[in-house]
C-alpha cells in the first residue's frame, strides 16, 4: 500500500466507534445546550505565555497552558460535527470531538483517557505537533469562521491536568502473552510502539543508544518548548505498563537484530530516526564554531551545556549567531543561541517566509524573542581566524523561481549578490539523513536510495519477517506525530502477527 492510501484510510471499526460516541445521550444534550451560532461567537482562547523579554534569557517553558475555565470555554467553540474533519487530519486518529466534548463537560480525566486510547504521548503532541497543518487545518469551524478550535492547546491542557493530578490511570492489561518484542530506539515512534505492545500484553524491551529515553524529544527539542519532566513522566508511565528500557545499548553494535532474535525476541520495531546531520559541503564548514544542529542541540539539551560548568559539557555561547535553515530544528537552535546570550541571533533561509516548514507558533515566538530573519539568503563559505575559528560568512542572495518537486518555489541564486557578514557561531540546520547503523548490520533489510528502510505502508512491515519500522528512518525526516502514526500502524500489525503467527491471514 502507498503512503497516501494508508494515510487516507480510516478503519471501519474506528468509524463505528466514533459514531457510537457521537450518538451518546450526553453528547446530544451538550450539542443542544448551546446553539451553533452562539458557539461561533466565542473567540479562540490565546495560549498564555511568558513575556518575550523575560523568556529569551532562560530555558523555562514559553507557553503556560490554559486554565480549566479557558479550556472549557475553548471546548465550547467545537461544533461537534457529524463528519469531523479534525479526526481525519490526525495521523494517530485521536477521536478529537469526543475528547473535546468531555472537556466541555468538565470530565478532564475521561478526556485524557480518550486521548490515550490513540496516543501514548499526549502531553508531548499537545506541545510539538504542527496542528495548524493537521487537525486544526481540517477543522470545519476554521472553514466556517476562519479560526479553528485550539485542539493542540486542549490536548496539552488535558494531559497536563492528568499528570499534575497524579498521572495516568493504568488501563486494564490483558494476561501476558509471553511474546517478546524488541523496540530499537526510544524516540516518539519507539515509545509509541512500546506502549501499544505492552497494552496488548506483550513483553517489551526498548533498546536506546543514548542515556536518556526520548530520542529527538530529549536531545533535539529544547526545554523551553518541551520540559524534560514531561518526557520523564511519559517514560515512567510506560515502565508502569511493564516496558523494560535498556539504555546505552546500540543495536547494530552492542548486539545485532539477529543476535536479539537468537535471544528470543520475536517481533522488532526499528525506530532509529534520521540521526545523520546533513551539511552543505561549502568551504569552511569544519571551522571551530560551526555546528550541526544535532550537535548544538544535543550539547545543550541532552548534556545540559546551558548549565556549564555545573554540567561538564561545554558549548560556544556565540555573540553573533547564524542558524542556517527554516524548519523547527532551526527555530529551536536560534532561540537556544539567543538564550545562551547571543546579542544577535539570525535565521538564514534560502527561500521566503511562506515556504518555511517550521510551525507557525515557533516562528512567532522566535520573532517576539528578537530573532532576525534573513530570507532568500544562503551561505557560500565560512571564513576562519588564525586559530581555525569561524569569524565571518559569505552569503548569496536568492530569488524564487519555478515550483520544484515539493511544490515550493525553487530558490535561484542572484549572480553577483555575494556579501560578507560577521559571525562567531554557525548552526547548520538543513535536515538529517537516516541513521545507517541498522541497515548496515542487518543482512536482508531492504533500503531505499536515500538510506530509508523500505516498508509496506499498510503494516509498516520491512523486507524481513517480523521486523517493522517507522518514523524518520522510513520517511527520511518528518514530524513526531507522523512517526507516532507509523508506530500505531506497525504495532497493530505486530500484534496480529504475534497472535496469529507469521502465517496468519493479516500478518502482512
Amino acid at each position, binding site marked *: 500500500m502507498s503512503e497516501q492510501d494508508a494515510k487516507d484510510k480510516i478503519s471501519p471499526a474506528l468509524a463505528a466507534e466514533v459514531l457510537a460516541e457521537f450518538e451518546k445521550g450526553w453528547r446530544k444534550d451538550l450539542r443542544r445546550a448551546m446553539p451553533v451560532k452562539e458557539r461561533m461567537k466565542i473567540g479562540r482562547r490565546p495560549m498564555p505565555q511568558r513575556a518575550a523579554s523575560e523568556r529569551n534569557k532562560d530555558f523555562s517553558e514559553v507557553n503556560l497552558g490554559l486554565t480549566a475555565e479557558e479550556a472549557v470555554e475553548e471546548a465550547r467553540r467545537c461544533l461537534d460535527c457529524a463528519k469531523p474533519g479534525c479526526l481525519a487530519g490526525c495521523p494517530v486518529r485521536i477521536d478529537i470531538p469526543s475528547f473535546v466534548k468531555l472537556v466541555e463537560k468538565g470530565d478532564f480525566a475521561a478526556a485524557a483517557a480518550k486521548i490515550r486510547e490513540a496516543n501514548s504521548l499526549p502531553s508531548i503532541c499537545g506541545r510539538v505537533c504542527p496542528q495548524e497543518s493537521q487537525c486544526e487545518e481540517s477543522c470545519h469551524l476554521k472553514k466556517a469562521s476562519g479560526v479553528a478550535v485550539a485542539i493542540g492547546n486542549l490536548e496539552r491542557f488535558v494531559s497536563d491536568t492528568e499528570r499534575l493530578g497524579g498521572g495516568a490511570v493504568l488501563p486494564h492489561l490483558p494476561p501476558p502473552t509471553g511474546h517478546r518484542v524488541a523496540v530499537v530506539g526510544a524516540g516518539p515512534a519507539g515509545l509509541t510502539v512500546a506502549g501499544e505492545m505492552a497494552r496488548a500484553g506483550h513483553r517489551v524491551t526498548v533498546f536506546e*543508544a*543514548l*542515556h536518556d529515553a526520548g530520542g529527538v524529544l530529549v*536531545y533535539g527539542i529544547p526545554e523551553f518548548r518541551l520540559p524534560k519532566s514531561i518526557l520523564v513522566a511519559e517514560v515512567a508511565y510506560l515502565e508502569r505498563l511493564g516496558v523494560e528500557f535498556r539504555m*546505552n*545499548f*546500540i543495536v547494530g*553494535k*552492542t*548486539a545485532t537484530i539477529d543476535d536479539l532474535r537468537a535471544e528470543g525476541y520475536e517481533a522488532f520495531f526499528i525506530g532509529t530516526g534520521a*540521526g*545523520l*546531520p546533513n*551539511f552543505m*559541503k561549502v568551504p569552511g*564548514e*569544519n*571551522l*571551530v*564554531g560551526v*555546528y*550541526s544542529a*544535532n*550537535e548544538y542541540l*544535543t*550539547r545543550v539539551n541532552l*548534556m*545540559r551545556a546551558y548549565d*556549564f*560548568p*555545573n*554540567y*561538564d*559539557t*561545554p558549548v560556544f555561547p556565540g555573540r553573533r549567531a547564524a542558524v542556517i535553515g527554516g524548519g523547527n530544528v532551526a527555530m529551536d537552535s536560534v532561540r537556544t543561541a539567543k538564550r545562551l546570550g547571543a546579542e544577535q541571533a539570525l535565521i538564514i533561509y534560502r527561500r521566503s517566509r511562506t515556504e518555511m516548514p517550521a510551525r507557525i507558533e515557533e516562528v512567532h515566538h522566535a520573532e517576539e524573542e528578537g530573532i532576525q530573519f534573513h530570507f532568500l539568503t544562503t551561505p557560500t563559505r565560512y571564513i576562519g581566524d588564525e*586559530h*581555525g*575559528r569561524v569569524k565571518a560568512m559569505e552569503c548569496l542572495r536568492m530569488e524564487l523561481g519555478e515550483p520544484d518537486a515539493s511544490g515550493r518555489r525553487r530558490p535561484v541564486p542572484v549572480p553577483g549578490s555575494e556579501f560578507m557578514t560577521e559571525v562567531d557561531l554557525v548552526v547548520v540546520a538543513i535536515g538529517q539523513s537516516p*541513521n*545507517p*547503523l541498522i541497515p548496515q548490520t542487518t543482512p536482508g533489510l531492504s533500503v531505499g536510495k536515500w538510506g530509508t528502510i523500505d516498508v509496506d505502508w499498510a503494516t509498516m512491515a520491512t523486507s524481513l519477517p517480523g521486523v517493522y519500522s517507522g518514523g524518520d528512518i522510513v520517511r527520511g525526516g518528518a514530524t513526531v506525530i507522523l512517526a507516532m502514526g507509523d508506530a500505531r500502524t506497525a504495532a497493530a500489525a505486530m500484534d496480529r502477527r504475534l497472535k496469529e503467527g507469521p502465517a496468519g491471514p493479516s500478518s502482512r
Partner: protein
Amino acid sequence: MPRVVRRERLVPNIHVLEVEAPEIARRCRPGQFVIVMPDARGERIPLTIADWDRDRGTVTAVFMAVGTTTRKLSLLSAGDTLPIFAGPLGSPSEIGPVGTVLCAGGCFGIAAIHPLARAFKEAGNRVIVLIDVKADYLLYWRDKLEALADEFIVSSRDGLYGGTEYVPRHVRDVLGREKIDRVVAVGCTYFMSSVAEATRPSGVKTMVSLNPIMVDGTGMCGACRVTVDGRTKFACVDGPDFDGHLVDWAELYARRKSYFDDEVRSLCAWEEERFP
C-alpha cells in the same frame, strides 16, 4: 549500570579501567572504542578499547587524566558504577596478513596499540612494536607487548632507554633498515601526525586512530568530523582509523582545541567543588 572491576594507576597520570560489559566484550574488535561518562553531570568521551576478556565479560581501557572527565574516572574504585559505558563503536581496524607491521603507540596509545599488535601477530605478520614515552618511568605494559612482538623498541627522551630523539627518528631507522608493509599509530594527535610525517616520504601505508571530540559516538552529531583526502568524514562511524597521509592534521588540531578555555574552567570548578 556497568560496574568497575578495576581502576589502577599504571604510571603517573595514566590509569587502567576495567569494566563489566559482557555484550561489548563479546563483540568488540581491535580498533573500536567505547563512550564513557563518569557521572550524571559528566561529559561523554570516547576511549579506545585496549583489551577485553570474553569469558569474564569485561572490557579494559587506558586513559590519561587530563580534564574533568578523566580526573573523575581516575578516582573510581572497583565496585563503582558508570552511568555510561557504551559500545563497541567505530569500525574495527583492517587486520590482515600484510608482511611486516610497525605498531607505534604513545601515551595512552601504548595500551591501545596492544590489541592491534596482537591481532596483526595472530594474522601471521612480523610485528615490530615501537613505544614512545617522555621518560622511562612512564613506560607500562612492557611485558604484555614484549611477549607478542617480534621486535620491541622503546623511544624515550631520558635515561635507561637512551637518546633524546622523538619517535620519528626511530620510525625512519626501522624503515631504513628493513621493508615495512604497514604502519599503525595510536596516541595523541601530535604523536600520530609525527609518525605519519615520518613515513610519508617512503609511502608506506600508515593508519592512524583519530581521537577528535565526540558527543554521541554513533554518527548523530558530527562533532568528530575530520577532513581526509579533501572530504569530510565522521571519525566515529567512518573511522576512527584513517590513512595518516591523507588526514588534514591542522584542522584536527584546531578542532581538538575547540573548548580549551572551557575545559580549564570546568576543571577549576570541579576542583573547587571536590577539594574546597
